[in-house]
């Protein structure tokens, strides 16, 4: 399994969590990406964006925020 790439988008305001995710996903054709966010808004925005780009999305609570796990094989 490929290494996990982590994007720490906690504390960023709209639309930066999505833009940071986009930057990473554009470099990858497959793999596992974990995006850390701290608001439900960012969680949903990142999930919707990645889903629209063909990534499988899983959402987890982590610490005070959330981790959006993006998978593509």
């Amino acid at each position, binding site marked *: 399994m490929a290494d996990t790439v982590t994007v720490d988008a906690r504390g960023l*305001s709209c639309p930066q969590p999505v833009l940071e995710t986009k930057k990473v996903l554009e470099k990858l054709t497959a793999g596992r990406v974990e995006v850390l966010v701290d608001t439900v808004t960012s969680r949903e925005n990142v999930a919707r964006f990645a889903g629209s780009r063909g990534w499988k999305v899983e959402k987890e609570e982590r610490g005070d925020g959330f981790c959006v796990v993006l998978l593509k094989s």
Partner: protein
Amino acid sequence: MKGFNKLLMSRLGPAITGGVVGALASLLVFFGNPGNMGICVACFTRDIAGALGLHRAGVVQYLRPEIPGFILGSFLAAFLAKEYRPRSGSSPIVRFFLGFFAMIGALVFLGCPWRAYARLAGGDWNALAGIGGLVVGVGIGIVFLWQGFSLGKADKSPKWAGAMMPLSALALLALLFFRPLFGAEGTGPVFFSASGPGAAVAPVAIALAAGLLIGWMAQKSRFCTVGAIRDLIMLKDAHLFNGVAAFLIAAFAVNLVLGQFKPGFESQPVAHTNQLWNFLGMVLSGLAFTLAGGCPGRQFIMSGEGDGDAGIFVLGMLVGAGFAHNFSLASSPAGATSFGMTATLIGMVFCLAVGFLFRIKMD
């Protein structure tokens, strides 16, 4: 209630919220709010600034209950869903001035993005220049975002830090209900217009209920009229734009039914026909809102869910409204003022400087 919330958080959420906000914008005109101003986040904040004596334009002073309604509706929705997350620290002082200049631009045009759409739905074609300006302003903001623009990260704040804006909203409602008069000359400290747009008001209960409902729905659905344009251009994502489309359709339909649709350029309520400054005022606002991450409605909603930076932006808008009238920057139906034009250009220089200077490498 759970089903309703789930629906608002679904793909349909922004469209449902936009439809309700648009319909209420037209209905509130019917109930007494000024023409094509059933809901205007900027104008209503300006009215509140006047009511608090921050400016002395006697025709635009009223404690609009819709505004505290937005904050409290959002607070309740967020708190009950455990989404209340006090946070701040993303360049708050810069956000204050973005709010300040966003308000100047909005008052040169005479409306926030919500009202721009409401004006269009009422047949005020001058709104087209404003909406064009809004799109250009958002576009400039997008260029900065592509280049890595960021005001930095916000941090978690202590639990009670997020309560400041909801408590302020309660204080505004208390002032509205008790109308204290202990200022010099037997008037004030709270002022209420006797004539003009500030005296055109929907019944308090209706206005407050509309504000609470919108605050609740917008918190759940993330309805944002600037994010709508931004995401459509930047990410080809129409999720939020559906909300704007639904707003326009609903507001237009209700206006038509109530006989409030009056197409034309001339003699539109609380509007002027100087298209260059309708356009440029909204370029400034659109840019400031994009750099701050959302339209004024969204900033109020976020301030209710504990976002201190959004709260600071809102306070910048409030102070900006005071300056706009005290310094003769706000337009009137006669048109934009030379001071307003100058302030718009200063605001643009400020926003462009912020856009250029706040770029953070995130790698």
